[in-house]
């Protein structure tokens, strides 16, 4: 199963949903879309607006395709360690209030080797069918900041 998620942000992400709906005709695998605030309803695959917990869908999926939200990315790469393709929401298409998802996507690409699609044309049925690369994200940096904060909060190391 391929799970597609665009999160809970209150702007549409029709560029991605429509593209997946078109590609679904060429893909023989089940596709489920969490379409959020996007009004367009896919015709060639299953979709729903929101669910209180997306983890069961992600656990079941072979591949996850999502907007470049921090929550989804951490869940998939750090906890589930599954193949992930990210499509950052872009301000110029009215998909977000600024381009921070593009900035984060570049970081994920450079630092963790995550597959990023900036131009929706590059998202093809071939890519979706064969994509199986796993780019796990370790938590070294997270442990670093937690340790620092512990010292800072307890007043043990103000300066470093």
């Amino acid at each position, binding site marked *: 199963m391929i799970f597609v998620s665009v999160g809970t942000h209150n702007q549409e992400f029709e560029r991605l949903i429509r593209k997946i709906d078109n590609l679904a005709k060429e893909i023989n695998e089940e596709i489920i879309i969490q379409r959020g605030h996007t009004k367009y309803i896919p015709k060639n695959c299953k979709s729903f607006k929101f669910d209180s917990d997306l983890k069961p869908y992600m656990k079941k999926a072979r591949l996850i395709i999502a907007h470049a939200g*921090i*929550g989804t*990315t*951490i869940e998939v790469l750090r906890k589930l360690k599954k193949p992930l393709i990210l499509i950052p929401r872009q301000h110029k298409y009215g998909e977000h209030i*600024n*381009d*921070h*998802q*593009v*900035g*984060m996507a*570049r*970081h*994920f690409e450079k*630092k*963790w080797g995550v597959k990023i699609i900036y131009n929706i044309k590059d998202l093809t049925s071939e890519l979706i069918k064969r994509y199986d690369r796993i780019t796990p*994200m370790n938590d*070294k*940096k*997270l*442990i*670093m*900041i*937690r*340790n*620092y*904060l*512990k010292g*800072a*909060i*307890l*007043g043990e190391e*103000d300066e*470093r």
Partner: protein
Amino acid sequence: MKIVLASSAGGHLTELFELLPQDLNKDKFVIFTEKNDRTSKLKNKTYFFKPLLYNPFPYFPALLRCIKILRKENVNVLVTNGAEIGLPAIIAAKFLGIKTIYIDISAAATIRTLAGKFSYPFSDIFLVQYPEMARHYGKRAKYVGGIV
């Protein structure tokens, strides 16, 4: 040791919980945030504030209320990652001589945040989550790791 977390109710608060050392007792943190389905179910002692958005006027009553609560609660450290009540809270804490820690949101990988810009002068410790972001704020901004 009493710790206040000041943050908007969505992803900011989730991230703040995730960033804090896991061996501190999370349930003991006092929270300043807005009320929604999720925050109303928190186990923590929580003070709810009305959404401030980009309107400067509600900031003053919020600031006074923060001062009053921080005094009453006898707080030692305030941690915020900005947005909504974060700014009035960090100003109030600084004014009362409470230690202030600001952590820029992980979404700010390339773009400076308004919360960071305004909170910088009121922070004792100012952290960014990407090495390249420190130069966007000032000399005291530092990178010591981040969520991703």
